[in-house]
């Protein structure tokens, strides 16, 4: 599938440092798993799509958020973690392993074979801490609730950090100014789009 570069990457409202960071992210997304185990990574790919379906937002394009998250897990992190969770990479390995074990306890099958409604049930119960106790799982139900917040945060962060998502959602947050001139946004247009900002290609979806 050909994926043209988002046009805003050529904008003179983008600094070269920001452009470089965004181009590196495009490359990163096309990379390979490096840190998580193959089993955990496969499960993460499924979970990413269940938490955040991309088709309504990107159409035919599908971003490999699992790879982006996998690469982040070896980085410096963001300076904190929940005291009740282990360090990041371990937490993700344990969280994903636990997700499968809780699934087996509840539905007697693996996460990958569940129907969408069952997957939703597991993800919701994990998030609100209401999974039934399953001593074989590395994470307690309380830990699953904490990790579920990290999980969702990483998924939306990876998605919104990608220039293709930014282009499709009409997000201009990186277009704060170029190298020579820091243009910002003109005072008269703070409540509407300026010509250099991407349009909302996927409109404001109807809220149910």
């Amino acid at each position, binding site marked *: 599938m050909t994926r043209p570069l988002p046009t805003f990457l050529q904008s003179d409202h983008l600094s070269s440092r920001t452009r470089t*960071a965004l181009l590196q992210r495009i490359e990163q997304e096309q990379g390979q798993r490096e840190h998580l185990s193959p089993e955990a990574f496969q499960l993460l790919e499924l979970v990413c799509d269940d938490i955040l379906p991309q088709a309504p937002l990107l159409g035919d394009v599908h971003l490999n958020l699992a790879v982006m998250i996998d690469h982040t897990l070896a980085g410096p992190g963001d300076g904190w973690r929940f*005291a009740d969770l282990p360090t990041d990479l371990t937490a993700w390995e344990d969280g994903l392993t636990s997700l499968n074990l809780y699934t087996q306890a509840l539905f007697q099958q693996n996460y990958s074979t569940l129907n969408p409604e069952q997957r939703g049930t597991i993800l919701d119960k994990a998030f609100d801490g209401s999974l039934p106790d399953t001593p074989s799982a590395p994470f307690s139900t309380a830990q699953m609730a904490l990790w579920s917040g990290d999980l*969702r945060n990483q998924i939306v962060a990876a998605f919104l950090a990608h220039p293709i998502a*930014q282009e499709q*959602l009409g*997000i201009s947050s990186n277009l704060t100014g170029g190298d020579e001139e820091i243009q910002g946004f003109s005072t008269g247009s*703070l409540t509407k789009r300026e010509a250099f900002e991407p349009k909302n290609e996927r409109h404001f979806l109807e809220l149910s």
Partner: protein
Amino acid sequence: MTQETHNDFSQETADVVVIGTGAGGAPLIARLAMAGRKVVALEAGPSFNARSHTPDEPTAQELYWLHERLSGGGTPQAFGGNNSGTGIGGSLLHYGAFLPRMDPRDYKLYSESGKGVDWPFGAEELQSYVEEVERFIGVSGPAHYPWDESRHYAYPPAAPNRAALKMRQACDNIGLRHADGPLAVVTKDRDQPYFGRREGCVNCGACHQGCRNGAKSGADNTYLPLACAHGAELRAGCMATGFERDSQGRITAVIYIRNGREERQKCKAVVLSAGAVETARLLLNNGLANSSGQVGRNYMTHVSTQVWGVFDEETRPNKGYPSLTISEDMLRPKDADFAGGYLLQSLGMMPLTWAANLVRADGRRGDALSQTLAAYNYSAGIGMHGESLPRDENRVTLSDEKDAFGLPKPRIDHTYGPNEEAMHRHASRLMVKMWESIGAKDIRVISRAAHMIGTCRMGTDAGEAVVNPYGRSFDIDNLWISDHSTFPSSGAANPALTIMALALRTADAMLKVV
């Protein structure tokens, strides 16, 4: 452009070593240097070039304090972007620059309500320092401030974005006064002494990712150039780890790690300006200044609930100064079932920060989450900052885990008490009502805490406080603290202005003895 340091005091005995170069350190460093003191400032982070800051949120994390903290308790606080920074200029590199003054009633909360504690002095004691800071760094604000007619701001207000306009309308609908908030942002070009030209704000919206054109009044473009011009030495990349002391227990040198090697700087006095977590951690790890047992205790935040909604027209939340509209009408609500009060502010936001707050607080997933993200450009919020009472269980301690320096990682326990819960409920009701009044759809409440305050309380009783009302340790007379860790109570205002004012006051006190 000048955080250039010309002096090298590494082979001398400095009059003062300051640990940290943010809001607590920078004004004090400048004040002491101007009075002729040999000052060395140790900064754990690097020296950034402002023009190289980037609005790309993952990359902008370089401005955060990234040495891992463990967050525990019943309402564990999310660290990262909303509190500690790193680099020459400290957290002011990424602060929001919303610069309200602390309300005079907040200094006397215990006298007023029987809850919390009083400060050892009132607002009038800090008034001249507050005004001095505002004058020196450059602050914009309205011509008439509804809650204080005597107040004047040097620069006209920033341009309103959609969120600011929405909040004005909502305030009008339900009968709240509102104004353009005081911002540490210059809205016209400014010639900053010893720094040079700072460009007026261009509405880029990336205050939290680092201001690229100098419009935001940080330490890097105000007090630190002033300090360097008067001979202070700023030493970047230096992580303070310990102290040498003489037989009387006075500190004679600060030990720090630079490029993986331990170095020491001899000194006559030390100021800790490393923030509520790192200041306490340094003292706890070295077993210093804690005869009161209060180091690390009374950790406070601000109740910082947000309410978001979706509108029919585009809001483009990343554009313009993020949180322009303010209301101080809730500083003492008539129907309050809690002590203290809160400020309201409009909220635009950069996309990753916005989404992180959302998904941590809200269980939506699947198509509902996709729909929500699609509505980023139609979203606007209101937020609050409210008093958080000191509680026994809220504190900074040392964990069993070691960091890259071999130091114990700090653990921060944080649990809302009944006062914070009541304030959260009150503010949520009000903000939802405000957003309903202007037709917002998909209104959602996000419970969260922000900022870090307390852990080395100031007071008049050596048995109950770590430092005296000027920031001087009761236990070690050449050790001072200048940051938000000395705040006895949180107040409602964003802490930066009060920290800077206190820093100048502490510097004046030091000049009498150092």
